């Protein structure tokens, strides 16, 4: 339909009065990719999206779309289209007029714009409802209309502000698949803001994890999960345990960190000097319920909680300076040797499963 544009964000900041919502972030989103901005509320992800869309002024820095610097352009001149969290369909217009709205603003003749809108609604399989008003539609249908309205402008990039948050869990998963399919067929750049890591993992080619106005990590979903860059990313993506301590010795590429409670743990490839604080991550599904072969690759703790999940069992253990160290084991492994709350339990892991976590320099 249209050629996709690369989005280049160059040290963009957003300052509201005395608070800085976005701290000079830089990011390149390649043309035709699906990018998810992920982070807790207030992390600056929506502000960033709105700056790309042009609904928020940019305090400093520049945004380039394709070959054009759009920093000072109004929203409609940027070649982007935005889909709002609540869909923002015009309640007083029927679906055709909603979708045809931008054509009407451009002064396209009534017959022509209605025909084009109907074509767009047909693409979204909503043509049967063309004469209805938005209030008569379900959430999923409203979303399709909002998509039709955004796409009728033939944008180079589609910006989606938490598009699935208003839907029930079942519909969420279905619409998620539809979004992905749509992005593949249109081939344009999608930028999607969400606070659900599951959603981001399922959709994105590029996940951008933000916290406190900064980008913690921007990488492919697999990289983000297997090599989280910081403790924040490891915690936010879930399924990771994070242990924090100080480097006490480095020997042949293997560093030892000591947690405040005194236990020591080994980690490879760490770029820190002795005495510096450091975090390590261990995936919950890589923790084994057996004594460690080496003292620094495991610890003994007390079981705080056991959660049965069907195919797996989640065991929460207190120890080594963590009060929610989690091990996820298969149900077969668990029922071979069950434990209950209050039991002492030995945990261990392999050296290659220890992920060194960095810290943001800023």
């Amino acid at each position, binding site marked *: 339909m249209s050629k996709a544009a690369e989005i280049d964000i160059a040290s963009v900041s957003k300052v509201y009065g005395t608070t800085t919502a976005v701290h000079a972030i830089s990011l390149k989103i390649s043309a035709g990719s699906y990018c998810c901005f992920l982070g807790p509320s207030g992390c600056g992800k929506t502000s960033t999206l709105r700056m790309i869309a042009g*609904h928020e002024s940019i305090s400093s820095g520049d945004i380039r779309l394709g070959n054009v610097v759009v920093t000072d352009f109004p929203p409609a001149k940027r070649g982007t289209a935005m889909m709002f969290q609540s869909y923002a369909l015009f309640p007083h217009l029927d679906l055709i007029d909603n979708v045809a709205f931008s054509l009407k*603003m451009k002064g396209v003749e009534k017959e022509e714009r209605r025909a084009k809108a109907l074509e767009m609604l047909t693409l979204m399989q909503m043509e049967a409802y063309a004469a209805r008003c938005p209030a008569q539609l379900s959430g999923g249908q409203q979303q399709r209309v909002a998509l039709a309205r955004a796409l009728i402008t033939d944008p180079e990039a589609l910006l989606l502000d938490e598009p699935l948050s208003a839907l029930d869990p079942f519909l969420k998963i279905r619409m998620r698949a539809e979004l992905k399919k749509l992005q593949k067929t249109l081939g344009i750049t999608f930028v999607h803001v969400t606070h659900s890591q599951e959603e981001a993992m399922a959709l994105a080619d590029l996940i951008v994890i933000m916290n406190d106005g900064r980008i913690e990590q921007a990488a492919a979903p697999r990289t983000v999960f297997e090599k989280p860059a910081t403790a924040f990313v490891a915690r936010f993506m879930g399924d990771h345990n994070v242990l924090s301590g100080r480097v006490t010795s480095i020997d042949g590429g293997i560093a030892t960190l000591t947690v405040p409670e005194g236990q020591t743990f080994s980690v490879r490839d760490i770029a820190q000097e002795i005495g510096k604080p450091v975090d390590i991550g261990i995936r919950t599904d890589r923790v084994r319920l057996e004594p460690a072969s080496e003292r620094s690759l495991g610890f003994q703790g007390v079981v705080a909680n056991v959660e049965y999940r069907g195919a797996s069992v989640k065991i929460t253990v207190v120890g080594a300076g963590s009060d929610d160290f989690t091990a996820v084991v298969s149900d077969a492994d668990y029922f071979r040797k069950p434990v209950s709350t209050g039991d002492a339990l030995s945990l261990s892991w392999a050296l290659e499963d220890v992920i060194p976590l960095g810290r943001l320099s800023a």
Partner: protein
Amino acid sequence: MATIASTEANETSGRARSRGLRSPLRAISYLQATPLLLILGFFFILPILTILVVSFWDYDFAGLYPDFLTMNYTDTLGSRVTWKTYLNTLKFTAMTWALTLVIGFWVAYFLAFHIRTTTMQMVLFLVCTVPFLTSNIIRMISWIPVLGRNGLVNSTLTELGIIPQPIEWLLYSDFAVVLALVHLNTLFMVTPIFNTLMRIDRALIEAARDCGASGWQVLWNVVLPLAKPGMAIGSIFVVTLVMADFSTVQVMSGGQSASVALMMKNQMSLLQYPAAAANAVVLLIVVLLMVAAILRVVDIRKEL
């Protein structure tokens, strides 16, 4: 008060009985609606019925005689004066309605979209209501020293040498009547419109901008259509108030202009109650038709 107290007593005993005897739910609902029905019955339906009945009575300078005559209606509707007065009242209503609608919309628009903080919005809104701390009559009369022959406006303009002699039409004219009516009624337009504007999802404005709408296009295609219910409610207030006005017309026109209500007041001071009643019924029908027309154009159910 006695009525209310007794119905409340009825209601509680009714509830107690229902618990004991499991009387049908319908009966309880009717009981719960009774207090409102009594109040409306005594203070609304009964007076209107009285007026309706009296409008068919006979009268002379000495008294009223129960009867069933259509004379009062034929006299009222057959007289040129009535038609001229209605026309005059409709003229005032139309002018006041148009002016309050335009002014009211812009004031509400400014308050809702250009004032950033809610506190400031509320402060400015309260400022709009300050004139209402004094009575209608006082606000009206205070125009006299402003607009009079030697009033503020005229003396300022003559002293500045802009006009050679005082403008006569400032006071005791249709201009003065409409000015006072607009002054008295604009807030009734501002309030409901402000209310609807505040309910417009700001994302809609952004969505319109995203679709390439300019400021005026947003106003015309999004804000105005969504403000229609508020405009309709404000219009109902203003139209009914102005159609029934007599004091403003009398004071501000200096007795040179007439309105339907003023005509009724004069009939009543001549003890021609049945004639006034017939007039009132006609006015009621006209106003109801106007309200029905407004409701036909705009669906206000969303606002209620």
